[in-house]
């Protein structure tokens, strides 16, 4: 199972979302879709309507910058991070 680490600010928006989740997925996009099935609205927080990551959302898989198409291994560590943004 991939181990997913989520930003604390996201857990404030999505009721019941924990900071760490474990689940099976072949790629980042499938992982986000599965998260959205359990916590409705999460995909809209991370992706825009064209199914690309939002501009200020960064996803790292096993320490490497990832896209939605990035493949996962059974023991991948996925970190969803908020980019430097705001004012």
């Amino acid at each position, binding site marked *: 199972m991939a181990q997913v680490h989520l930003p604390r*600010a*996201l857990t*404030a*928006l999505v009721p019941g979302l924990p900071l760490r989740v474990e689940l099976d997925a072949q790629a980042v996009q499938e992982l986000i879709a599965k998260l959205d099935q359990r916590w409705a*609205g999460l995909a*809209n*927080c991370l992706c825009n*309507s064209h*199914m690309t990551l*939002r501009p200020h959302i960064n996803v790292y898989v096993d320490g490497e910058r990832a896209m939605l198409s990035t493949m996962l291994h059974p023991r991948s560590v996925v970190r969803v991070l908020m980019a430097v943004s705001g004012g």
Partner: protein
Amino acid sequence: MTAQVLVLLGTKKGAFLLTGNEGRTEWHLRGPFCEASPIYHMVYDDATHLLYAAGGNPWFGPGIWRSENVGETWSHTNIGLTYGEAGPGISTIWHLTPARDVIYAGADPAGLFASTDQGLTWTHVEGLRNHPTCAQWQPGYGGLCLHSIVVHPTEPDRMWVGISAVGTFATADGGQTWATRNQGVRAEFHPERYPEFGQCVHKLLLTADGAQLYQQNHCGVYRSDDAGVHWQEITAGLPSDFGFPLALHPRDPNTLYVIPLNGGDKGRYVPEGRMVVWRSTDGGDSWGPLTRGLPEEHAYLGVLREGMAVDTLDPVGIYVGTSTGQVFGSHDEGESWQQICTNLPPILSVETALVEA
């Protein structure tokens, strides 16, 4: 039961609530709420006693927050706030309007959404973006936001919306089909002075009896007595044709308030650094300044399109939130003003509610 005025403040860094005492002379501030996300508009639904806040988070996109207990706790949703894979991404929700059994939301880029489950989930009202002009809508400095939604008080299928840099549209069938409503409104920044669309409406409101529409535009203030088919300019007597906010008296359709700024290309602050609210009591035929208690010099502040609101008490209270974080209030229909709050983040919106004390 004693009614208590709430002033709902959307700011660049979250939502705030001001609660007034019975005389509206003392105020208690709560906030920031909504994870300090930029909040572009807030509204209280009298029918359900639910409080809503709309905005956008720079990381997580558009969102609408809901409180069932007048701001004690909040929940967030974005379910349905999308144009789908074929449409553009949504950055922000700009405006909320409760109607009978539905709540409407306006988005940037411009589009209309509706919720029939008290704001938990949302559905795109596709008819507006199906209008043949949609592909030609171009954003202005304020984006391509749908910032005004007004619903006829007795015929809820009749609605009007205002879109920045696009203009006013009307529907008579609950949003399935729309028509432009910009005849007589100037667009000085456009190759044609009076195009079919492309006018930059800044705020659009309907009188309580549904008989008149008013708008503050990038190019003047206007009134329509025929549901927006024709507009009559009512700028004469004001110091500038440029401003953002507009407020209507809740009972007198001929009384309205505006706050002109010095000009669209001149800094967009109150003229000569002197804050003045202008009032008309004759439907815009003439205007008079309201100044008592407002900053008289060195006030280089602005007031944005949602930055002024009225309550429904008698006499009417008027509230203005500035781009520099002050709130000014009047409990005598604008005759005198007090600064009731300061040092807030830039204020994006002001609304009011009457709740049980």
